[in-house]
């Protein structure tokens, strides 16, 4: 091989890598640009929102839109309610799902595998089928316009989360618990002292999924909550949207604030999160 050929090979190699970067970056634009649009619009003065041709970079940068939006609707109440619903639900879901998943993954009992298949089958039940009778029940219990209907069902775990954690528990070596059993540890203690600490990535994945689901939930709050004091962030945003109409900068500021918890949480946990989904290879 001559010298010339080698350098040409090198050139082709770097060219190829450059092409890959260009491809992966260009293709990312449509997925990112709505966020760019959201943030820049949130920082524009009203005249710039309705300027033609469009203003890409806000000048001056109007940070006050955020305080303006925050003060023009009871957002502190909406956030507080969303936090209550989301945090209690997440803690309940993670704990109940892990507990159940441990039973399915590590404890032998008659009918276990059949029950597990049955549990997988329940994932197919559309929420729209069960929502109506649940609405009627919660109504009878006097839970309308309270946060309870949004929290209580998640305190018993979710089939998908149980499945995900079971897959996770199955990867933990059996030798650890065998030693503990021989020393006379109960299975509860083993679950608590061995499995929970070893499963942090799995538990975190479930926590993030469940956080996103509850934070973004719309139809539940829509049918159960009817006073501003009880609104969660999604219903609060809808209320704000219909009040504010076309003030896109304030709307985008409010949307940014509503999305921020999800984005931050995801960016900090993505290392475990994406791995967790790949592990089970299943999430719709």
């Amino acid at each position, binding site marked *: 091989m001559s010298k010339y050929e080698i350098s040409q090979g090198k050139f082709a190699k770097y060219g190829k890598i450059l092409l*890959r970067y260009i491809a992966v970056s260009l293709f990312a634009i449509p*997925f990112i640009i709505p966020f760019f649009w959201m943030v820049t619009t949130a920082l524009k003065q009203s005249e710039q929102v309705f300027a033609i041709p469009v203003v890409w970079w806000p000048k001056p940068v109007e940070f006050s839109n955020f305080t303006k939006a925050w003060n023009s609707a009871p957002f502190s109440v909406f956030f507080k309610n969303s936090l209550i619903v989301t945090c209690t639900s997440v803690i309940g879901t993670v704990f109940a799902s892990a507990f159940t998943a441990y039973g399915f993954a590590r404890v032998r009992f008659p009918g276990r595998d059949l029950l597990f298949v049955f549990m997988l089958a329940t994932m197919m039940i559309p929420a*729209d*089928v069960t929502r109506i009778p649940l609405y009627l029940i919660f109504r009878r219990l006097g839970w309308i316009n309270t946060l309870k209907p949004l929290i209580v069902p998640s305190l018993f*775990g979710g089939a998908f989360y149980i499945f995900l954690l079971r897959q996770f528990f199955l990867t933990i070596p059996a030798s650890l618990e065998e030693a503990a059993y021989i020393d006379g540890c109960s299975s509860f203690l083993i679950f608590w002292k061995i499995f929970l600490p070893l499963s942090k990535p799995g538990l975190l994945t479930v926590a993030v999924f469940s956080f996103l689901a509850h934070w973004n939930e719309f139809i539940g709050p829509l*049918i159960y909550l009817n006073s501003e004091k009880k609104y969660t962030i999604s219903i609060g945003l809808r209320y704000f949207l219909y009040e504010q109409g076309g003030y896109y900068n304030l709307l985008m500021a409010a*949307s940014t604030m509503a999305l921020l918890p999800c984005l931050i949480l995801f960016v900090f946990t993505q290392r475990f999160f994406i791995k967790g989904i790949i592990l089970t290879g299943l999430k719709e």
Partner: protein
Amino acid sequence: MPKAYPTRERIAKVWYKYRLDGFIFILPWIIGTLAFQLGPMINSFILAFTRYDIITPAKFIGIENFKKIFSSDPLFYKSLWNTVYFVTGSVPISVIIGILVAVLLNQRIRGITIYRVLYYLPSVTAGVAVAIVWMSVYDVRYGLINNLLSKLGIQGPSWLGDPSWVMPSLIIMAVWGLIGQRYVIFLAGLQGIPEELYEAAEIDGASSWNKFVSITLPMLTPTIFFSLITGIISAFQSMFTTAYIITNGSGGPLNSAYIYVFHIYRNAYEYYHMGYACALAWILFLIVFILTFIQVKFSGWVHYGG
């Protein structure tokens, strides 16, 4: 050697303990599924054969609800058609783009994790906030898309105002939000393809395209099939939030955003036709059930490696 060698009694004792423990461990799920899934399922099935408006007691009316749905409810057909339109648009497109993105993100280049995070971002931001962002993006005069189009000399449509553009708009939003979930599954699929196959093809002088068509795609078939079916199942039940928000709860011009779940919602919680809404929900369940059955039954025909 362990200290206590397991005797017959000890095994029996432990086994008994296991049994009891097992049921205690899965108790939360058993209670939850009885109270919030199976109980309501039965309840909803019974309600589907009644007329019930919450105020007066439920009245058994046989299959009247179903008769009415199929014979004299034009909105049933309209909403079902809208949903089928949405499903056939959003699912295949999101699967194709999902594969493309997965191939892009499967490259071994520095900093690829950052790109994986970027492409996943839309998937963590469902809900009202995103719908509002898209309303601004779609704005006829001041929106992002029409401004970009006008740069190319194209007069953009009234995305959310023109009945024939509402569904394409919804499909674009859905695809945008689905790519994260799709690519993750395909990425897992790609990483499961044995490296030797590509090496062998390279020795035979196959081009990148050849490799993609004759190795990557066939090896991904099970994943594609899985994605299509689960995608269809969930697409049948999704998009209510977006459809509701962008149309201010109206269903859009000429009911163009009025999807099936919207029809259930309106009958149940706006008209309080609880029995009728349950009947509608059971039809949805039947559709989902058939699709799941197809998946379980036919996932055998696709090519599994090894």
